[in-house]
């Protein structure tokens, strides 16, 4: 006989909110969006990169919100979780705030250090070759993104989030190091695909209860 564990029951109810695959599709689209920004053609960065990135991210965000509101919620219903979940989300916000501060501090120290002739000379000597410089920036970029997303996955109890975090960190690394948007696009598609499968399953599993909602 299965034991009824109230904590597990709450967790299952919470995890069911990820069954629509929208998070996977949204994050996959974000990776594809990044490819527009981080790709540096021979001519260098252009404002078009930033415009495309912002436009694409706005579309991804709008699609996610519209999907949640008009597809997921009418089919699955709405639930408000208890105090423990709210506290966990607040802790996540706090931890992410600290992580962002660490990133900013790191970039600040780096930029100050670079201006320091002695430190700048040591760094430039170490990163003399273009390859070493790209490798260092790519590693730092993926270290900035990966652990933050792993923290988000942990606090949101989002198991697939660990896979997505690893994929996004890899996408950032390859985009910077190899300077080709194709890697991000492939990784984006690899992230979106499970989301699409889950979404189709979700539509089958949770049909719209039109009659019932009319009678509620």
């Amino acid at each position: 006989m299965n034991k009824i564990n109230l904590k597990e029951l709450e967790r299952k109810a919470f995890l069911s909110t990820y069954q629509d695959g929208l998070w996977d599709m949204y994050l996959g689209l974000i990776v594809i969006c990044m490819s527009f920004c981080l790709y540096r053609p021979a001519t260098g960065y252009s404002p078009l990169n930033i415009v495309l990135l912002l436009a694409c991210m706005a579309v991804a965000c709008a699609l996610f919100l519209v999907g949640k509101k008009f597809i997921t919620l009418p089919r699955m219903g709405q639930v408000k979780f208890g105090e423990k979940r709210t506290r966990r989300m607040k802790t996540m916000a706090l931890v992410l705030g600290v992580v962002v501060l660490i990133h900013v501090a790191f970039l600040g120290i780096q930029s100050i250090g670079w201006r320091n002739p002695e430190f700048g000379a040591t760094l430039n000597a170490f990163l003399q070759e273009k390859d070493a410089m790209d490798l260092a920036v790519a590693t730092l970029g993926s270290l900035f993104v990966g652990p933050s997303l792993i923290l988000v996955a942990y606090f949101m109890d989002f198991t697939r989030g660990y896979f997505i975090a690893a994929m996004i960190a890899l996408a950032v690394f390859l985009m910077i190091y190899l300077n080709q948007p194709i890697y991000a696009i492939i990784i984006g598609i690899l992230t979106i695909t499970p989301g699409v499968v889950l979404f189709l399953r979700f539509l089958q599993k949770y049909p719209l209860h039109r009659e019932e909602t009319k009678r509620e």
Partner: protein
Amino acid sequence: MSKEVGKADLTSLAEIDRLVHEPARLAVMSLLYVVDSADFTFLMNQIGLTWGNLSAHISKLEDAGYLEVKKTFKGKRPNTTLKLTSQGRQAFRDYAKRMKQIFQDFNG
């Protein structure tokens, strides 16, 4: 004091809250106990009851004061939000405690 011969002490069984004891209502109360509130569709999907069946159980729990039912509209759609009252939460805790005690007493 020794118990009467041939008469088992089953009085505790009669004290079980029958309103909570029914499996579908127990499922509703268990789920609402672990969340803050949920709407009708969410409960229906999680518990796997039909609309009519769930509606009947909810009415009974609401009449007993265990459930707070809020009917609102989301756009043109009616939306029913359900939440356990403090009385309902206490009833669920008492029920769980009593059942645990009964099963402990069964061990002979």
